[in-house]
């Protein structure tokens, strides 16, 4: 019974959150130009309802606020680089990034819908779920690898590309890592490492990095504070 209750409560919270977001966007349309408002409305509809061409509503997994469910099975998208999100959607659609869940969804989005929904997610800023406890030793190792790198395995600092504090380089399409769920980060590094996810830049570091470093950087970044949305 408790479980049903909690699902109902979650649905209610999501619905309220959605309404708040919707009313916020509605309020915004007064001041912003028509093109932007159309874009936001398109985005909001996709987030809430999906498309008739097969895209399931984003909110189902990623929440209305983009924070997903905290399990790390789904990445948080709020405040993420719009360039990066759009590129990933295109990669899901083309099969360049293989993902059975995301492929039909991305294929169900037209190009302008990809742009709209990516920009919408980039504009969100949500409070994070409390991060999992992590030992000081693991956190310190993670910080070391993130900020300095690990010469013993020839891996450069994550932040050399992902920006100071892992805040990402939004215009260059480099995703933030800070505040991202550790489970998601470590799974993605494993994906790069094993060749399931392709990236010129991530191939070598993901291949060289030690298992211990993966756990540590993932834990470190989950705890790091999220970048402010500009």
């Amino acid at each position, binding site marked *: 019974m408790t479980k049903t209750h909690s699902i109902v409560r979650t649905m209610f919270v999501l619905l309220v959150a959605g309404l708040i977001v919707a009313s916020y966007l509605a309020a915004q349309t007064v001041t912003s130009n028509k093109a932007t408002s159309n874009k936001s409305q398109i985005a909001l509809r996709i987030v809430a309802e999906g498309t008739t061409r097969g895209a399931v509503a984003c909110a189902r997994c990623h929440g209305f606020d983009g924070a997903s469910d905290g399990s790390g099975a789904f990445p948080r998208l709020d405040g993420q680089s719009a360039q990066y999100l759009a590129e990933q959607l295109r990669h899901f659609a083309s099969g360049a990034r293989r993902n059975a869940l995301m492929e039909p969804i991305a294929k169900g989005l037209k190009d302008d819908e990809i742009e709209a929904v990516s920009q919408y997610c980039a504009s969100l800023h949500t409070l994070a779920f409390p991060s999992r406890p992590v030992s000081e030793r693991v956190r310190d190792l993670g910080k070391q690898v993130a900020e300095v790198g690990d010469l013993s395995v*020839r*891996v450069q600092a994550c932040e050399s590309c992902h920006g100071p504090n892992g805040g990402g380089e939004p215009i260059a399409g480099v995703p933030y890592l800070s505040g991202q769920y550790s489970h998601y980060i470590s799974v993605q590094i494993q994906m790069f490492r094993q060749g399931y996810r392709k990236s*010129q*830049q991530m*191939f070598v570091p993901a291949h060289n990095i030690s298992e211990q470093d993966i756990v540590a950087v993932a834990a470190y970044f989950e705890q790091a504070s999220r970048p402010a949305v500009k």
Partner: protein
Amino acid sequence: MPQKLKEVDVVVIGVGFAGSILAKELAASGLKVVGLERGDSRHSVPDFQAPAIHDELKYSIRKGMMQDVTREAMTFRNGHKEVALPMRQWEAFLPGTGLGGCGVHWNGQAWRYHEEEFVYKTHIEQRYGKKILDPDLRIQDWGVTYQELEPYYDRFEYLLGVCGKAGNLNGKIEPGGNPLEAPRSREYPNPPMKEQYSGALFRKAALELGYHPFLQPSANTTRPYTNPEGLTLNPCAYCGFCERYGCEHFAKASPQTVILPVLMKNPNFELRTESQVLRINLDSTAKKATGVSYMDAQGREFEQPAALVLLTAFALNDVRMLLLSGIGKPYDPTTETGVVGRNYAYQTQSYVPTFLGEDVHLNSYMAGGASGTVIDDFSVDNFDHSSLGFIGGCYVLCGSTNARPVEFHPTPPGTPRWGSKWKDAVRRHYNHTAIFNLSGTSTAMRGNYLDLDPTYRDAWGLPLLRITFDFPDNDVRMSRFVTHKASEIARQMGAKIVVDSPRTGPFTTTSYQSTHNTGGAVIGADPSTSVVNRYCQSWDVPNVFVVGACNYPQNSSYNPTVTLGALIYWTADALKTRYLKRPGPLV
């Protein structure tokens, strides 16, 4: 009283590309090798990591990776009647220091030389007759040919993972590459870099004018690449912090990324940093080196005996070390006798700032050190000089290595140098200006040479190196001709303003041009005009080998590193297969 250390087989002076590769080859063949490096140890992690490495003030303006000018500099003058003065800050050229040497802070422009450059004198005189040469020019042949060096070029390129498209594979012209390059035995290890927008505009204009544009060969890696030493490089991120910086991404080929980790693991090798070599010691016959003397960071002097001494400390430092050690006869420009310091040459650089107007957005900050589109039509002897009255040429490169905010702010002539009008001009031109880089030959001349300064001394009390140099008139005429050709391409691109600025004399040390200082310990077949034989072995002291751009009898249009790499492996091979079996003169 200097402390005498236990004898080793080999001592290497300077651990950059040349030192680390030679040390690696000899240590792997079982010899005990000591590497003496005057600077600090440094590695990709942690020393080159962002954001600290992207500090323009520290590295570009204050030259954070360069030799400490307060301890050791050079003196300079334009002609032998002037009094040379010491350089107090680096501007014209940037001699590096520290583990990895200049291989850390280079851009990665990875060119081969042409076949005829190795037989330059023979070739020029055959093609044009002796009359084309001004009487004071002193060009000469290398004593080693391109065909002999080709396998070693190949080996160095595969070590670095050079990125490019072959234009001439075993004599067959390949589409997409440089049709004018010397024949290569196989394709480049990696594909070329991405073309910048300015390069694409340049390519179109150059094609319209009948030239042969291609993407510059680069040692900024373009895909994950594992070199023959088993070390993996990461692709370049086009961050625009290459020259004057270390690379945080393991993407730029440097000793740290392509060879040092292998060398460091070999127990036969010992690295001693902060070790300032004072001289190479000779025995009483002065025909055999007994080792080197050096001072450590505590100011203690050591004598390191060694059976073989490898001098790999950058062109200028190599020549100075020979002079300080009394190896070879110093060159005298008045009598034209002696060889050490002879044929010092440089690089005849010029630029064509091309202002394209505010509707053309170049985004030049998306750049690698060696990204760019280039034509080779006016390099060295790729065009007919018979009616031109000079020899040599330049490659013409359009592309940016960076658009870093502190250094890069092109403004058209007539703009005030500060104030609101300057700011306004920077705003209007920053993202809309391409700057062509013309890298030109430097012809050796009788009066250009290196010797020891009679007045100024370094922190260890030893005489500084004195540089006597000015641009030969031949090179000034050459620069004028090729720069005009480049300006035509700029106009063809539809530029609003083209600044045709050929190199003119006198040479000045106060504006950056190039760190391609060459000559002074020249390679050759004749001991009366060269310091080392065709295996980079000292004619006078056969257990001393000198490997550096100081070996070049004159300077090419092209950046010197890859040719140096060929000489390094060529010398390593001669040492391993011939010298070690029977130590003594190889020629």
